[in-house]
C-alpha cells in the first residue's frame, strides 16, 4: 500500500508573528510541520506498520526551507518525499492543491492523508482542492480511521459521531484526537538524510501560473484588548446592565 501524506511547514504554534507595513514579518520565527499534518503522518506510519508492507510518501509545496520539515517527517519514519520547490510560499490553497494533485497523479497513492487545516491560515481548503483536482472523495476533520478492502471508514466527531464510508483512493483530513504523534528517534534522524527526496518545480509540472483566484493584500494586527472593568457589590448591578446594553451591546 502506498500512502501519501501532505504536509505544510508553518510558523510554530508558539511563534509570535508580527505585522509591519501590511506584511507578515516572519523573521526569526521558528517553523515546524503543522500539527494536524503530524496526525496524518503518524496515521500513515501506523497503517503501514500494521500491514507490514507499503510506503509512506511525504508531499510538500513551498520554498527550499521546507526541506527541514520534510526531513522531520522522514526522521519520524516516512520512506521518501516529493518536494515541489517554489520561490515563495504558496498562500493560495487552490494553487497549492493543483500543484499537489499534479505530483500525486504521478505517484498514484492508495490513500492521501493530510491535516484538515494548516495552523497558519486556518483555511482547511488544500486537501479538499486536491480531492477535487484528482476527482476522488474527501472526508475532513477525521478522528478515527479504519481501512478495509478498498474502503475507508472515517469518524467525524461532533456532538454526534458521524461515520462516513468512502472508496479509496480518497483524501482524509486528520484532526486532533486521531492519534498521538511519535517523536522521531535518533536512528530516524540519522537515516532521514539518506532517504530519497524528489524535487520538482511548478515549471516542470507545467503549472507555473495556477488557478489563483484570491490573494492576501493586507495584514493588520488586531486591536489590542482594552483593560477590563471591575464592578463590585450588588449596588453596581444596574450600572453593569446599562453598560452591557449600551457599550457592549450584548443584551
Amino acid at each position, binding site marked *: 500500500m502506498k500512502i501519501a501524506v501532505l504536509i505544510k511547514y508553518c510558523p510554530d504554534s508558539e511563534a509570535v508573528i508580527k505585522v509591519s507595513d501590511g506584511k507578515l514579518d516572519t523573521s526569526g520565527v521558528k517553523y515546524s510541520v503543522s500539527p494536524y499534518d503530524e496526525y496524518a503522518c503518524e496515521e500513515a506510519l501506523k497503517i503501514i506498520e500494521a500491514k507490514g508492507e507499503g510506503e509512506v510518501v511525504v508531499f510538500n509545496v513551498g520554498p527550499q526551507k521546507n526541506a527541514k520539515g520534510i526531513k522531520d517527517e522522514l526522521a519520524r519514519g516516512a520512506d521518501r518525499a516529493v518536494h515541489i520547490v517554489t520561490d515563495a510560499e504558496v498562500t493560495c490553497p487552490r494553487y497549492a492543491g493543483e500543484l499537489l494533485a499534479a505530483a500525486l497523479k504521478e505517484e498514484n497513492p492508495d490513500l492521501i492523508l493530510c491535516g484538515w487545516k494548516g495552523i497558519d491560515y486556518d483555511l482547511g481548503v488544500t486537501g479538499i482542492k486536491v480531492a477535487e483536482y484528482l476527482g476522488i472523495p474527501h472526508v475532513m476533520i477525521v478522528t478515527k480511521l479504519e481501512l478495509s478492502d478498498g474502503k475507508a471508514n472515517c469518524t467525524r466527531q461532533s456532538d454526534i459521531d458521524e461515520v462516513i464510508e468512502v472508496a479509496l483512493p480518497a483524501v482524509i483530513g486528520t484532526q486532533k484526537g486521531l492519534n498521538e504523534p511519535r*517523536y522521531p*528517534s*535518533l536512528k530516524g534522524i540519522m537515516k532521514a538524510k539518506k532517504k530519497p527526496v524528489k524535487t520538482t518545480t511548478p515549471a516542470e509540472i507545467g503549472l507555473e501560473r495556477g488557478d489563483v483566484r484570491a490573494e492576501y493584500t493586507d495584514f493588520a494586527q488586531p486591536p489590542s484588548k482594552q483593560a477590563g472593568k471591575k464592578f463590585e457589590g450588588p449596588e453596581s448591578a444596574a450600572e453593569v446592565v446599562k453598560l452591557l446594553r449600551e457599550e457592549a451591546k450584548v443584551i
Partner: protein
Amino acid sequence: MDFSLSENELEIVELVKEIADNELAPRMVEIDEASRFSWDNFKLLGNAGILGMLFPEKYGGTDLGYLAYSLSVEEVSRGDFNTGLTLSVHSMSALAILKFGTDKQKETYLQRLMTGDYLMAFVLSEPDFGSDAAGLQCRAEKVDGGYKLNGTKAWISNAEDAHLFVVWATLDPKLGKKGITTFIIEKDTEGIEVAKKEPKMGGEGTATNQIIFTDCFIPDDCLLGEEGRGLRVALNSLSGGRIGVAANATGVSQRALDEALAYSQERVQFDVPICEFQGIQWKLADMDTMIEAGRLLYQKAAYLKQYAGNDLDLDPIKEASQAKCFATDSCLHVCSEAVQIMGAYGYSREYPVERLMRYSKVTQIFEGSNEIQRNLIARELLKD
C-alpha cells in the same frame, strides 16, 4: 580542539531538548515527590534511541559518541534530573559490558539495555567502603562452576528497579587491589536481597538501597573481564560516569537559572521587576558564567574520552574529574542562588528550585566525592 557538532548531532540534541521540554520537565516535580522510578521516562529515552548513544548499531545503539551523549544528558537532566542521572548511570554500567564483556554477554544484554526494557545499576560502594572503594569486602569465593558471593553493598542507585547489576567483589580480601573482580549479575538471582530504601535529602525519584548477597551462586560466565582486574573496569567506567554527572549537574544548574531568570522578570518589588536590580543581575551573570564554564569542561572531557576510544592509557582522568568537580560545586551554588533570587517562593516546595538545590548536594558526593576528584587531579599534576 573542536567541539562543534555536526548537523546530525545538532538535530539530535534539538530533539532531546524538545523531549526534555515537552515530556520530562512537566513531570519532574511529580516524579520526585512520588519517590518513584519513572518507567515512562526511561522507555521514552529507549524508544528515542537516547539510551544507545554510546553503543554500536550492531547492538541496537546509535553510536553518536560522547559529545552528543553528554549534551543529551544535560538536556534530559534539565527536564528531569532523576531521569538524567539514571541515563548516566545506566549508560556507564552498560558501557562496562561493551568494553570488557564477552561476545556472549554483549549479545545477551546490550540490545535490551538500549531499548529500555532492561535497567542497569552500578554496584560498587559498601557501607564501610565509599571513597576507599578499593578496600571493598564483598567476597566472591571461587567455587565449582562459578563464584559464591557474600557481603553488603550500599547506596546503590536504582537497585530496586534495575534488572541487571554490575558488581565489584573481591576473590579474597588478602589479595588487596589484585583481588577485585567485576561481575554481571541478574537481580533475580537467588541469594540477592535488595534491602530497604534509604530516606534522603533529595533526588527521591531515584531510589537508593542496600543490596545483600547471601551465598549467592553465580556461574562462571557472569565474570566481566578478567579476575583481579576489576579496579581497571571501575576506573574506566567512572571517568565516563563523571562526565555524565558533570552534564547532569550542568542540566540542573541550567534549569535553576532558567527558573530564576523567568521569575526575576516577573517579580515586582519597589515598583520594578527585581531583574532590574544590579544585585540580582550580577547573580544571574555569575550563574550563567559558571554553567558555561562547567559545560565547556565536560565537553572537553567528552571530546577526549571519545578520542581515547578503547585505549585505557588515554582515558581523560584529570579532565573528567575537573568537569565533575567544577560542574557539581557550581550546581550547588547556582541552585542556592536561584532559591535566593526567588526568595520565599524559591524556598517553597510549590516551586521546583528548592528540589534542585536539595538534589544538587549529592552531585558533589557520588561517583567519587569532590575531595576525591581533587585528589585525582592533584595526582595527575604531580605525576612525573
